[in-house]
């Protein structure tokens, strides 16, 4: 595996008013790895994800996407870079006035590269990938369950065949079986494409199954980063509590033997 940073955060500081959100966050996401990002509620994980694709800019420090600093490029280049990222937002962020089909087709139609039959085929392929059927195509987001919204959102994030996938709580709201299906989906995508994934999750099962490395965000900075064994050995109270809690132990026992 090559070791270039697909996504790099360099000494990122973020403040909202007087409140410090990130205090010197430095992080490098390698090509073709799955990096898990964990942290308590309100620790600034989602803000960090928004900064990764340039929706927000840090107070100081820089964010580089595919080797290009986001603060040094014009809006057009930034859009090009963003096109290469698929983002699954926490709430799904589906367009409520479009059908499932149109939601997934939207990024493809926007690019104007493919014709309608190709788009139709791709959309049903993506739906199939995330475990939905073409019968769901004509439904509106308001008619979907929470888990289905997540899947449609994932299908839309995958529509442009991104090289970097940013997932904000992809398995929350999914039943355990769908969660496992999601894990195998990401694994198969990684196999066929050189896919890099940043995964924000509280679900220890998903993290253990999928992540090559895990970064722990606490006290406004990355307090531990590395393969699971390293993070398990971390003495930081949050990391310790997260991975040594009762639920986590249950999840770890079956899968991971250190």
């Amino acid at each position: 595996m090559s070791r270039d940073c697909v996504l790099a955060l360099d000494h990122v500081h973020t403040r909202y008013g007087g409140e410090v959100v990130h205090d010197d966050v430095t992080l490098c996401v390698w090509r073709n790895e799955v990096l898990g990002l964990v942290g308590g509620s309100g620790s600034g994980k989602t803000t960090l994800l928004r900064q990764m694709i340039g929706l927000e800019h840090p107070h100081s420090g820089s964010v580089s996407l595919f080797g290009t600093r986001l603060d040094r490029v014009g809006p057009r280049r930034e859009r090009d870079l963003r096109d290469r990222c698929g983002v699954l937002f926490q709430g799904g962020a589906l367009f409520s006035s479009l059908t499932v089909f149109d939601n997934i087709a939207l990024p493809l139609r926007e690019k104007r590269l493919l014709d309608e039959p190709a788009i139709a085929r791709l959309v049903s392929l993506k739906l199939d990938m995330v475990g939905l059927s073409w019968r769901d195509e004509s439904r509106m987001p308001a008619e979907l369950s929470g888990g289905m919204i997540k899947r449609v959102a994932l299908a839309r994030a995958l529509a442009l065949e991104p090289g970097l996938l940013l997932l904000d709580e992809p398995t929350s709201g999914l039943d355990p079986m769908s969660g496992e299906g999601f894990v195998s989906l990401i694994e198969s995508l990684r196999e066929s494409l050189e896919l890099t994934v940043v995964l924000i999750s509280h679900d220890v099962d998903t993290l253990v199954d999928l992540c090559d490395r895990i970064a722990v965000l606490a006290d406004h900075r990355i307090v531990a980063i590395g393969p699971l064994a390293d993070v398990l050995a971390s003495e930081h109270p949050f990391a310790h509590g997260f991975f040594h809690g009762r639920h986590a132990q249950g999840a770890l026992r079956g899968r991971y033997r250190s």
Partner: protein
Amino acid sequence: MTTVPDRRPSAPAFELETRDEGATVVLSGSWTLQDLGPRLRSLRKALVALGKRQGLQWDLRAVERLDSAAAVVLWQIWRGQRPQSLSLRPEHDRMLQRVASQPARAARPRRHPLTALADVLAMLGSELHEHVRGALILPGEITLDLLYILRHPAQIPWREISASIHSAGFRALMITGFVGMLIGVVVSYLSAIELQLYGADTYIVDILGISVVRELGPLLAAILVAGRSGSSMTAHLGVMRMDQELDAMAAIGISPTRRLVLPRVLGLGIAMPLIVLWTSAAALLGGMISANHELGISFGQFVAALPSALPMANYWIAVGKGVLFGVLIALTACYFGLRIRPNSESLGRETTNSVVAGITITLIADAVLAIVLQGVGYP
């Protein structure tokens, strides 16, 4: 930290080679949507032309990456059939099989124009039915809620009523006052030109008084409030519906009509007559200034002539209209607000409907009142 510059994959390309086994199309490079980009069109065109040839061999072993978009494009070029001679990497083969396994989608059945027309008519009919039902149910519910809180005074939502008076009433003072004054100036100015011709200058007080207090003041206030406060009430209820706040309220056991609709109706019912008087006063002031300027009628003369030109009944009519219009606007706004479905399109549509319906209903009520009160309040 150093970041390695982006490793650009090699561009997608193809070549036509003549090998022992026959003509072979050799694809190479990275066949992904990102890398194909604008090249897609020309590559596709060239390959489609090639694809028509029979007995062609396809060699995809030099393809570095193949994503599903590129696989779909290739599948289209092969017109939905796997070429007889195709060699490719196993992972790419899996991708291709995935594409091939998608059932060809049947085209959406075209509907007969008469069926479509019948559908539209049926939709209009059901919508009309829904509106008539809603127009009966909501005022009924509000009346029941009103009777309930009158019997249980401890549950009168004072805070909500006060907040509603503040947002729909107090905050509207600036704009209604300003617009009222401008209209007063315009009416007075236009009348002055005509009146001067006949030397009937002093009748400006009668014209302004009756038209402003009886009609223009209440109507202007109603139109502005329907546009301003009505739309905000509708949108507010709509966003509450989208965020499931209304469901949460119902789950806690709070009646959304009693807690949300009733205070707004009462609040606007209280605030509106005051806004009407305020708007009328502003319009009269504007008219006075204009009359002073154009006809030389002093403020003192104007005010002194007002009581005889404008009997007290007109003020009561204005106040009554204010209450009625306020209640109608709030009811309409809340009715459309509660109709909003959880999607952004519905929010926009119902907010527009709310304003249009609010103004129309007010105008209809005003026309009815004009006929009913024909003989009342003239000097």
